[in-house]
């Protein structure tokens, strides 16, 4: 099988729901074989709807897409044989054990008998659930459920893996463990990974390339480094010791750049006009104006700055005004 067939390609992909806006509005995508593609956006941006279309669960209203070389509309069954997917909620039966889940999933994929037993044991070991294999799911932690979810997505040796917000709600240890496993899949097994996330760090650490989606549109795409380099300017953020000096603080900082949204309460933030903004100069100017500072910080450009640059909003909380209905999020 040609490695080219592990790619994901979408042209003008659109999904419109009844009584709702366009959840996905003309997405153009190309994910190369073996690549980890991070699809970053706030809740309601259209991430999950895109995943549902690419995994054949939802027909597109317009546009075309091929996954693993198969058209998602014309050849759904072949797409499903090619892909594995762990959707947003770890959809597990609380009354079955981990091993029973794997056996069920194997059977649904036509893997039976000894091979089923072997594959189940292999995957349980791979995701570190061998000891918990015969415990019911309702006793599993969130991280264990996510790892089992990943194992279930892998039973039939898929060449392309879709992970829809795989680490939402997980603690940092579980998140890191999952990142390592996903990284291994791409690196060692050559699996193409399409990962949606609302976590900047996840996209930054894990993805080879990132697509930023907002209101159903792809607003930016590139490697995390490329995207941050586009911004190229740091942000300085300061909190006045006396809240009454907030105006004076803003006036001083605006001499060095363009005002932007602060991250913390009471903070004034400015994106510096040059990439090598001189912090000493800024401190001297604040001192000269008698503005006392409680907190001062320089942020290197992040993917959130990219999101801010492209949409005028920070990623965190941007989803609150975005909800569009089914699928529930993303």
């Amino acid at each position, binding site marked *: 099988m040609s490695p080219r067939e592990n790619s994901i390609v979408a042209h003008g992909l659109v999904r419109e729901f009844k009584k709702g806006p366009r959840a996905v509005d003309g997405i153009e995508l190309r994910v190369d074989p073996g690549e980890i593609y991070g699809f970053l956006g706030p809740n309601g941006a259209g991430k999950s709807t895109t995943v549902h279309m690419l995994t054949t*669960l939802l027909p597109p209203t317009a546009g075309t897409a091929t996954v693993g070389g198969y058209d998602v509309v014309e050849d759904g069954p072949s797409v499903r044989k090619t892909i594995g997917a762990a959707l947003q909620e770890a959809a597990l039966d609380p009354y079955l054990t981990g091993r029973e889940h794997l056996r069920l999933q194997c059977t649904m994929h036509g893997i039976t008998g000894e091979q089923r037993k072997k594959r189940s044991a292999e995957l349980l070991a791979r995701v570190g659930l061998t000891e918990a294999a015969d415990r*019911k799911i309702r006793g599993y932690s969130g991280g264990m459920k996510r790892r089992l979810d990943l194992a279930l997505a892998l039973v039939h040796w898929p060449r392309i893996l879709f992970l829809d917000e795989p680490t939402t709600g997980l603690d940092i240890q579980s998140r890191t463990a999952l990142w390592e496993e996903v990284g291994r899949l791409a690196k060692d097994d050559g699996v193409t990974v399409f990962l949606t996330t609302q976590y900047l760090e996840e996209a930054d650490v894990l993805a080879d390339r990132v697509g930023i989606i907002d209101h159903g549109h792809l607003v930016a795409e590139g490697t995390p480094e490329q995207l941050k380099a586009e911004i190229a300017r740091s942000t300085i953020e300061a909190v006045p010791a006396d809240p009454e000096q907030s105006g004076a603080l803003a006036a001083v900082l605006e001499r060095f750049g363009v005002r932007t949204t602060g991250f913390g309460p009471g903070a004034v933030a400015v994106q510096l006009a040059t990439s090598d903004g001189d912090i000493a100069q800024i401190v001297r100017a604040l001192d000269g104006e008698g503005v006392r500072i409680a907190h001062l910080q320089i942020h290197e450009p992040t993917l959130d700055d990219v999101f801010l640059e492209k949409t005028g909003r920070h990623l965190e909380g941007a989803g609150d005004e975005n909800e569009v209905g089914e699928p529930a999020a993303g």
Partner: protein
Amino acid sequence: MHTAVLQAATLGRRAVVRTIRQPANVVFPLIFPMLLLAVNAGGLRAETTLPGFPTDSFLAFALAVPFVQGALLATINANVEFARDIQTGFLNRLALTPVRGAVLLLGQLGGLLTIALVQALFYLVVSFAFGVRLETGVGGALVLLVLEAMIALAFASFGCWAALRTGSTEAVQGLFPVFFVFLFLSSMNIPRDFMETDWFRWVATINPVSYLIEAVRSLVIEDWNWETISLGFGVASGMCLVGFALASHALINRLERT
């Protein structure tokens, strides 16, 4: 074994295992119909003194009710779980495998059928212990189990339809009182020709549940009454056909997969 059969059997097994691991879903459908039978048999025993009443044991007369009630309870429990599968995304997980829609439906119904048959056996054993003997003998007991299976499938297919149509556990639970209205407006407590209130007799006559109960009852208290038995099987089959058609249509709409 053919893959589709194995898939349906695996899904059916899952439905059974899931039920067994929730004791309330096992105990309640076994005990509640038997308790109601005991209460009715005690309170309505005097009916048997009415001239022309078909039997002198009200326990035997009313034994048909637990069979229909048990099928109803099993149906509601199983389809609440099915609706939960839709809500949690478990159905989407299955939809992402090569499994066919019909197999999903058959697996779900197969599991429920197993549970309904185990319940039916329990009712038979308990009633036997309390002295009820089927007039149709062992052959009648076997026919009764087949009829019970069809009744369970009939209710289950409507429950599946509701689960698939709404994807809501609350909506499926809401079916429970609706089904019970049909049960109470049937000939569950008195033969139709003994009903003196015209509207009630009319409602019981157009109510399909009456024919299901009467077919089960005839196997218990009459010798082989082929007309009543055939009518029961006919109504159950008709309900199955309509229910399956609705459930299949709802499944196609629910699984929008390409």
